[in-house]
């Protein structure tokens, strides 16, 4: 589908990233902003910009009428949703389709399928991809207990339309089951708009590894390798790296194959990520698929040398992949640290204020994806992500030491950040020695 003007339906670093990709693709871009973001310097880089509402995201970045109306008055022919906000909302994709706008991502059918985590699990299992024992949560209390017994403890109660940790509760034993289901149901209804739940067996201190895929309209799917995302706090990723360290080569290939099979059976188009957990015995299990460009996409870009946002645009335009699996090669190692406006010494409380920049990292092998600027007001209305520091090295050790120096040069005032915690993690012997698992942070702080 041809288009010349892309509406950037997001804010912050990803909006900047999409605007850059549009410029490199010789496309016009329309940036949207809320009143709180009127001073963002990246707005200048777009061909035009439009204020669509007040700071409250439900009345600006999350408002489908405001976004669609802006697309209409600006004459945009395509929409890039970034991540978060409307990026994985099947209804939004449908509205785009009804209005003849190209949604840069999967179509509404795929979006619906992938959004139903239970259905996606079943689809993956149907093509032989391993999944953990699991079942939909029955309404009957007795049946619920029986289902949980069959799966075994510990387990997770998860939202059918959740993902990314929303509406998710760990359950250690039968005692906590009912309470967890009640709490998860309320959260699922509130955060995901649907109370549907399922049970899934939990793996103790697993690794989180995800595979980046690209699919086209002809049904062809390729992968761009995997990313290690085990360093998390309450299911929110903090540090990602590519490739995944000390992974058995057979297992690595199995993960890639499983990701391709999953994406293929889902009829997946555009950029997406297939998430797996790895247990300590060499087993891997499909968890969910994310139908968007991800925050951590730069680590793959850096080692594979593909601009994923440009590929997304290219796929939406041509419908066919321009790169082949055989032509892809990866080089070196990349690590990304997320700098959030949060105070690790006060329970990761979001920190608001006016930014003063003393120094920002740069130099050989260092990439900084950020919308930071001097005098920027960090508002309580939005995600706390301030910057992504990405370090590349010929090997993991070079990337790791380069990251440490880059973090040392990340010096801003006005808000508390996760910078020092990131330094603590990358310099920790367990991180250096590749002892990675989702409990990493808990073990660090206790």
């Amino acid at each position: 589908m041809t288009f010349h003007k892309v509406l950037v339906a997001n804010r912050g670093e990803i909006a900047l990233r999409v605007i850059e990709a549009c410029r490199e693709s010789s496309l016009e871009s329309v940036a949207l902003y809320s009143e709180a973001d009127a001073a963002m310097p990246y707005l200048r880089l777009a061909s035009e910009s439009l204020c669509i509402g007040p700071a409250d995201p439900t009345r600006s970045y999350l408002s489908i009428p405001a976004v669609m109306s802006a697309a209409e008055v600006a004459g945009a022919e395509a929409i890039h949703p970034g991540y978060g906000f409307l990026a994985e909302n099947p209804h939004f994709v449908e509205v785009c389709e009804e209005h003849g706008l190209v949604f840069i991502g999967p179509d509404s059918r795929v979006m619906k399928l992938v959004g139903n985590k239970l259905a996606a699990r079943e689809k993956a299992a149907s093509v032989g991809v391993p999944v953990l024992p699991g079942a939909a949560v029955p309404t009957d209390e007795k049946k619920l207990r029986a289902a949980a017994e069959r799966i075994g403890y510990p387990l997770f109660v998860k939202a059918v339309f959740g993902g990314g940790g929303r509406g998710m509760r760990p359950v250690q034993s039968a005692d906590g089951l009912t309470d967890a289901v009640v709490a998860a149901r309320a959260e699922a209804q509130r955060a995901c708009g649907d109370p549907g739940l399922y049970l899934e067996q939990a793996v103790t201190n697993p690794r989180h590894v995800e595979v980046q895929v690209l699919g086209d309209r002809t049904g062809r799917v390729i992968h761009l390798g995997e990313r290690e995302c085990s360093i998390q706090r309450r299911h929110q990723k903090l540090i990602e790296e590519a490739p995944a360290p000390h992974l058995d080569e057979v297992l690595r290939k199995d993960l890639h194959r499983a990701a391709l099979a999953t994406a293929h059976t889902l009829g997946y188009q555009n950029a997406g990520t297939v998430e797996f957990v790895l247990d300590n015995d060499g087993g891997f299990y499909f968890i969910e698929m994310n139908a968007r460009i991800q925050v951590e996409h730069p680590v793959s870009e850096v080692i594979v040398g593909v601009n994923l946002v440009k590929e997304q645009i290219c796929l939406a335009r041509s419908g066919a992949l321009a790169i082949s699996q055989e032509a892809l090669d990866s080089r070196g190692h990349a690590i990304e640290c997320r700098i959030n406006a949060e105070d690790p010494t006060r329970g990761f409380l979001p920190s608001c204020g006016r930014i003063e920049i003393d120094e920002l990292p740069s130099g050989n092998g260092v990439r900084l994806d950020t919308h930071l600027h001097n005098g920027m007001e960090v508002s309580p209305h939005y995600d706390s992500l301030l910057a992504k520091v990405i370090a590349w090295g010929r090997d993991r050790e070079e990337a790791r030491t380069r990251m440490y120096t880059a973090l040392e040069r990340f010096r801003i005032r006005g808000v508390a950040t996760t910078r020092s915690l990131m330094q603590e993690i990358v310099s920790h012997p367990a991180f250096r020695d590749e002892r990675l698992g989702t409990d990493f942070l808990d073990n660090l702080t206790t």
Partner: protein
Amino acid sequence: MELGELREIIKLLKEEGLSEITVWEGERRVTVRQEGPGVASGEAPVVIDTVRNKAAGATAVSAPLVGTFYRRPSPDAEPFVEEGAQVEPGDTLCIIEAMKVMNEIKAESAGRLRQALVEDGEAVEYGQPLFLFEPT
């Protein structure tokens, strides 16, 4: 611009110790400047556009949503409000079309329309001033 408004601007200039105020009203521009001790020279002139200029006695009505602005109910009809006309709370001022829905924008308070700031059929952003009213 009326003489009373000009007096207000001069008063503001003195009270705030400014060196210059420029007021834009459509194509017309009025600059009031004072020289003398206490006023730093070489500073950028303070430009106060009519929209925010309370001294000029006008208040602005801004777009509550992004969309296409229409001053009249249909292309060949008269505008909802002519310049100089009196409006009462609840009177329709204009239409903003968003996603094929015609949203009628109504007056929240009584006033006399001094100036419409947007042309018929123009795209408007959220918060963009549409009309200037003199409260009555």
